[in-house]
């Protein structure tokens, strides 16, 4: 999605304008019209591969019959314009557009799909709590996490949370994040699971003699009127927390009187609690928000509190947020900012680091390591999470993601850190324990600078074996450049023929000589081959074994890790590449990170009208060399996060 360098494209387009105006004095500066100007060009140059007979790379221009439809596919347009700009599309073998035509397309894109887009909030959609959100909400509400009644053994996996055990995993939504549950309907199977969990939780509540239970049942028995007075505030508080907003007083009074007058108060209490925990406003987010319909408005204070707490904590708001919401103060910038800072300091913000990092970087791919050694696999997977958590927690500059002097390691991973491993406490496993999970310790990379940043963490390297997967991972996850799937008939890289000692890179360059491969591989390869000093297990091994002189001798040969980015910059090794990523690609990396984080915060896929906010934030962050907490804060105060439109009729 290389809007990459929106700024740089803009600059180049500006230059193009100058040329255009000198070459063609009669240049027309009205905004190009989609039907009149753009569609004919698409027909001529693009339809053949992208719509008519084939739909290459999943891009279908034939579908985009109107400007509105083109807007829906704004991501495809970002890619298309960049490819056009780089001369990658249309491919060399096909008919090439004239310079004026290229210019027309770029202008139309820039004006219609970038500059004229007006930021507006998305339509409001309530959604079911994800399994994790439901679990944490229930835990906060009741004061305990309903557990499964089993003992745990080391090195085995069993689900101890009853909620997680019984609720199916949330598949990633359109946004790619699991908290995007919009397309996950309630089913009767799920209903049964909720009912069972609720029952279990209420039994455990009774057994534990929790406050709501005990206090409610301590009411003055003799006098129902007194009892109602006693129970009403208890229920009002419980309902407010369960529904994440206050309920009308008569609602709570009604519940209180039902219990106070019941012949079996315990059963009545249980029943009322069960109704609350199974009702839509508990299971769903945002059902009770009451704002002016059909126009952009600020979400109300309670919705804002909920958005904040589920974004930063995966949990319901705490008492402080409730209070501020009740006072109507939460939308005030200074107060909002202060709350965000407070919430990020809370231990619960780890759920943001874990949830976001895992899904954004695709760390789920490391789950297959679990077959080797569970504690090792856990160490590999938690290392990047720990690192990102540190970046957020200490508000480190955004681009320290790429290079940093700080990392986290534990004895399972210590071998990758040479001298620096001395900074972690020596570990001796207890007698009779074969392997165990060990927490990470923060270390400073004094002797192993080649390990700085996320790209060279052993787990990240090991989950992407080989230069192609690694290059593609960086493009997709860090730079946000999503490439189409490779064609099915790519074949294998040929082994060395007898007597030849070509390196993998040399043999690969023969393999990819086909010009149609170059479009993607020019992007993938320089990034991937720069990481060739790291082996499949993520170990640092800056040499290859190649047959040397004498019989059966292997010599260590340095590996060629140099490369050239499609934009022209060259580098000798990974250290230089990292510098380039930070300097030349910094804006692109921050743009992508902003998009991802915003998508996670909003629990939905971003739309074109979110893009102005994304661009504004990412540019400001880049210019200010802002930190991770700053970015989170900006997103939580942005228009898409704080505003909405509630429709009263079906939107078109």
């Amino acid at each position, binding site marked *: 999605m290389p809007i990459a360098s929106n700024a740089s494209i803009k600059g180049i387009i500006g230059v193009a304008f100058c040329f255009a105006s000198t070459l063609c004095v009669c240049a027309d500066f009205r905004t190009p019209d989609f039907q009149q100007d753009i569609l004919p060009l698409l027909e001529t140059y693009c339809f053949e591969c992208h719509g008519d007979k084939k739909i290459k790379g999943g891009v279908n221009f034939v579908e985009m019959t109107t400007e509105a439809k083109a807007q829906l596919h704004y991501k495809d347009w970002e890619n298309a314009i960049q490819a056009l700009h780089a001369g990658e599309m249309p491919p060399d073998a096909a008919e090439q557009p004239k310079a004026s035509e290229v210019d027309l397309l770029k202008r139309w894109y820039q004006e219609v799909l970038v500059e004229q887009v007006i930021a507006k909030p998305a339509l*409001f*959609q*309530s*959604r*079911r709590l994800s399994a*994790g959100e439901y679990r944490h909400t229930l835990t906060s509400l009741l004061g305990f996490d309903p*557990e*499964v*009644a*089993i*003992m*745990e*053994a*080391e090195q*085995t*996996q*069993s*689900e101890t949370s009853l909620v997680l*055990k019984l609720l199916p995993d949330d598949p990633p939504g359109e946004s790619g994040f699991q908290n995007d549950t919009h397309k996950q*309907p*309630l089913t*009767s199977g799920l*209903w*049964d*699971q909720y*009912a*069972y969990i609720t029952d*279990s939780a209420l039994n455990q509540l009774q057994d534990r003699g929790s406050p709501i239970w005990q206090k409610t049942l301590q009411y003055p028995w003799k006098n129902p009127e007194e009892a109602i007075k006693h129970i009403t505030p208890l229920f009002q508080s419980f309902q407010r927390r369960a529904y994440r907003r206050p309920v009308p007083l008569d609602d709570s009074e009604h519940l209180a009187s039902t219990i106070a007058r019941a012949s079996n108060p315990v059963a009545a209490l249980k*029943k009322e609690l*069960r*109704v609350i925990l*199974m*009702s*839509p*406003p508990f299971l*769903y987010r945002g*059902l009770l928000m009451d704002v002016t*319909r059909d126009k952009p408005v600020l979400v109300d204070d309670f919705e804002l509190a909920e958005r904040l707490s589920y974004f930063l904590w995966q949990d319901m708001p705490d008492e402080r947020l409730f209070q501020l919401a009740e006072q109507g103060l939460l939308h005030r910038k200074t107060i909002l900012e202060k709350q965000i800072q407070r919430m990020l300091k809370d231990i619960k913000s*780890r759920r943001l680091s*874990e949830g976001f990092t*895992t899904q954004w970087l695709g760390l*789920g791919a490391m*789950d*297959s390591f*679990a*077959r080797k050694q*569970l504690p090792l696999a*856990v160490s590999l*997977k938690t290392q990047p*999470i720990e690192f990102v958590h540190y970046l957020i927690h200490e508000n480190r500059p955004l681009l320290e993601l790429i290079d940093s002097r700080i990392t986290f390691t534990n004895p399972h991973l210590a071998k990758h850190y040479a001298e620096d491993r001395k900074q972690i406490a020596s570990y001796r496993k*207890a007698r*009779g*324990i*074969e392997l165990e999970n060990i*927490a990470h310790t923060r270390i400073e990379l004094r002797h192993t600078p080649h390990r700085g940043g996320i790209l060279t963490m052993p787990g990240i390297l090991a989950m992407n074996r080989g230069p192609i997967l690694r290059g593609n991972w960086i493009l997709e996850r860090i730079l946000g450049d999503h490439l189409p799937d490779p064609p099915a008939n790519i074949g294998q890289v040929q082994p060395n023929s007898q007597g030849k000692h070509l390196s993998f890179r040399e043999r690969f360059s023969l393999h990819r000589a086909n010009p149609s491969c170059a479009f993607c591989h020019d992007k993938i390869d320089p990034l991937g081959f720069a990481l060739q000093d790291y082996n499949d297990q993520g170990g640092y091994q800056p040499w290859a074994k190649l047959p040397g002189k004498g019989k059966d001798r292997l010599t260590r040969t340095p590996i060629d890790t140099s490369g050239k980015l499609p934009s022209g910059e060259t580098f000798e090794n990974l250290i230089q590449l990292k510098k380039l990523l930070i300097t030349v690609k910094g804006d692109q990396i921050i743009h992508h990170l902003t998009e991802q984080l915003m998508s996670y915060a909003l629990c939905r896929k971003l739309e074109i009208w979110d893009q102005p906010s994304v661009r504004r934030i990412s540019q400001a962050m880049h210019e200010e060399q802002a930190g991770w907490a700053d970015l989170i804060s900006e997103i939580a105060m942005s228009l898409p996060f704080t505003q909405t439109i*509630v*429709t*009263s009729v*079906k*939107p078109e």
Partner: protein
Amino acid sequence: MNWRINRRSFLRGAAGALLPLPYLNLMEPTAQAARPAEPPLRFLTLLKPNGVHPPSWNIEGGAESDFRMSPLMRPFAHHKEDLLILDNMGDFGFSSHSNSTRRFLSGHHQHTQGPSIDQLIADRIGGETPHRSLELTTEGLFPNQVGCSYISYDRQGAPIPRESDPQLIFDRLFRNPMSHPRKRQEMRSLLDRVNEDASALSRRAGYEDRQVLDQYLSVVRETEQRLEHIQVSSGPRAGIQGHKRPGRPSNLDEQVDAMLDIIALALWTDSTRCITYMLGNSNSRMIFDFLGVKEQHHYLSHFFRNFSRSNIDGLLKISLWHMEKFAYLLDRLKGYQDHHGSLLDHSIVLFGSGMGHSDNHTATRIPTILAGKGKGSIRTGRYLRFSENQQLGRLHLTLLEHFGINQTSYAGSTRPLPGLDGSPYEAYTERPFASWIRLEGDTLTVQGRLRLSDDLSEAKVFYVDVEGKKPIRVEVAFKDFHRFNLAYHCGTPVILQGLCSIREGVPLLHKITKLTSLFGKKPGSQNG
């Protein structure tokens, strides 16, 4: 930093296909079994993890109906008349943990594409009960070798999810919310209330919210309809009154007892007739702190590799606990009257492991015990030591026959195992040897079978059995124990010479000067 990585992501990650999760089906209506006129035959298995410590497990010498239970068998010695102890079961060679787990119920470690016998049996007899079968365990998944966590496999040889939470199983069996009258009533009133509330909410809602609420209301209506169509039971199922839902266990012992209680109750109430239960993964990493043992079971089970006196003591404590659990299960099964006998009389219980020696992983002399008379088809109270190694598949073929499943072969075995019903079989014959004692001054020489003390709390004490005389007690310093490798010679006839003292009128060998193995077995050539 006290946190854990989200285990769920591991459980349900890329390895998902290999790590099936239990589908609990807590609310699915289940049929009520009518009390049959004749007692049904049940099949139950109990896996003992990590093989055994052979010197304490193996029975040496003795005859089919006149034998001495080994020290490890003492916890269930009072059930001797209900047991058929099989010896010389196994395969050639060594076995990984994962292979041995497969072997236990699938007959052979290479039988990976077909069903385990419990599943064949469940297919045959499971249709008549509310629950076809139960697959239970104690421990979580061991992802390094997934195979260690499963003994039950479906027809494609894929592992069947198992459940370890006694409360969930209890609810699934006995508190089915859909058929339980009180639960139905609760659910009905819940549905009424939420229906009312959601409808009221829907009238005020915006467009998108109405979509969500409609979806919610349609699920409520669907659940109401399901409730209407389920056959209602007349009350709690016969027999479970007085049985409380298990509480949250505070240690493994309580968890396993709770599960064993449920197993017996499930069989007795005819909720199911086929259950498999693993006392742990076959390479169990469990720590038995409630026994005062701090080391992981698997570490201790390598008693030779990780040799120390205290490790052996720890291992034996754990092994005895496994045996106590087996005894407890048999107690429970005997405690239930079933028609004109006990539940155990109408069951076949298979207890054992998939490997023999827990340190060197040999697959020979795999501990295998059948308990219960199988409605008269099994002649218990005997010890069968076969002349040669018998593949478990042969036993399985025979067990299938007992359940009316006649196959020509199972897991590569084509001949059923003889002898279970009292039919003739080829028994192991030991080379005869004489036993005697000679005392010259304070030097004692004794010839006889060396064995471990019956009391495993003094597992460093050995005895030499001498016919017609009291056994000679051997209690030596660690140096001698180690130098003469007493544990290794356990079960075999030896000539032992050493210094002797008399304690309480009984001769005691306290210093060994010479040990000769009578038949000259070389180390490593024999189990133990």
